[in-house]
């Protein structure tokens, strides 16, 4: 049972805003990452869908940008408790990128330039739930926010939306990624407040 903080009143969220438990709204866009921001020149950028050494699909930047893109307006939720409502992105749906891929894989490990990884069930990347985003608010995605391109999986906490993505590895078994190995929740559903291991 919570103890009361004598004299604390707090700042309430307007009642017309629905946020996941324990989140508060912000209008700026804080940055959280574990190391230096990688700088990936577009002429060296590539993205693969692979099964380890077996590459199923590969795009360079030009080929990637020829894929049909969508505009996306979504709320995003960071495990550090801020939420940003109605963010505008442009990106390619992973449904588009997975067309014609036949796999029995159940899990994925997403890899980034700079070495970051995060794991997601494959089904969470399908059915209009995930994109590779390359524009934010009508500008090219800034490097500190994951540019040239980042994963966008808005129904999970934002650490799952890996910045600087370079590939998705399909796997038969789950394997924890970077933060998932360091005490954060394996799945990360903000509506069930799955912040840390054990939540």
């Amino acid at each position, binding site marked *: 049972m919570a103890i009361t*903080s004598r004299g*604390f009143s*707090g700042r309430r969220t307007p009642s017309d805003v629905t946020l996941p438990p324990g989140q508060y709204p912000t209008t700026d866009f804080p940055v959280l*990452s*574990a190391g230096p921001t990688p700088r990936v020149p577009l002429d060296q950028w590539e993205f693969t869908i692979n099964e380890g050494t077996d590459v199923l699909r590969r795009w360079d930047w030009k080929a990637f940008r020829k894929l049909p893109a969508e505009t996306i307006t979504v709320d995003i939720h960071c495990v*550090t408790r801020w939420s940003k409502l109605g963010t505008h992105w442009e990106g390619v749906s992973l449904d588009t990128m997975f067309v014609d891929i036949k796999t029995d894989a159940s899990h994925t490990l997403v890899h980034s330039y700079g*070495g970051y990884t995060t794991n997601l069930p494959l089904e969470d990347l399908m059915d209009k739930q995930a994109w590779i985003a390359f524009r934010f608010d009508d500008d090219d995605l800034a490097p500190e926010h994951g540019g040239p391109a980042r994963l966008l999986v808005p129904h999970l906490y934002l650490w799952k939306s890996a910045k600087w993505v370079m590939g998705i590895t399909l796997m038969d078994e789950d394997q924890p990624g970077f933060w998932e190995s*360091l005490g954060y929740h394996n799945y990360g559903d903000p509506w069930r407040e799955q912040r840390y291991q054990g939540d």
Partner: protein
Amino acid sequence: MWRIGTVAALRDETATARTITLEVPDWPGHLAGQHVDVRLTAEDGYSAVRSYSIASAPNSAKRLEITVERLPNGEVSPYLTQQVAVGDRLELRGPIGGWFVWRPEQPEPIQLIGGGSGIVPLMAMIRSHGSAKSAAPFRLLYSVREPGVVFYYDELRKRSENGRSLTITYAYTRATPKDSPRPPSRIDAWLIAEAAWPSKLVPTCYVCGPTPFVESVAGFLSAGGNGPDKIKTERFGPTGGRK
């Protein structure tokens, strides 16, 4: 799981920053660099949670310290820096985070670079280095606006006196003390080259501060030949992240 911490002591570090010592009977211990979530609850049940870096070294005394900087429009930091009193109870969750940590068994040179209140988790590492009697050589490059807003000044001076394996360089960005060797300036590539460990010694670098500070410092470290896996960062924005 939320634990209850009782405020055992309060100490002002600057005009806007306060260290809170908490007694937590079931505290499981922590590593230097980890943080803790603090939850405040109003009488009607409304609650707000923020993360704060732990300032104290790991210890067996079931005590920890956090240093909180008051943000102008903060929801939780004004309460923690102005209203909370000795004997009050706060709810805590943690310790949290396993990446931005220093462990006493690390033998390599350590480069700490802090901006403003980004010094707090670095101070936990310096204190842990002292209490573990580690021989790893530490360097701290500490960027602050002016002398009056330096956290832990006397303790840092004592910990860096002759014979200790801690060397400190201050980078004052707006006003310097009279005896400062440099005019006010931000950390740049030149100061990194002069004051930080050379990359050929393969130091582990810990950089903590506001996002633009961390972006620029991590860029200088990378350009100076430090590998990305040797540069650990913790950023905070106006509302996000941890302090």
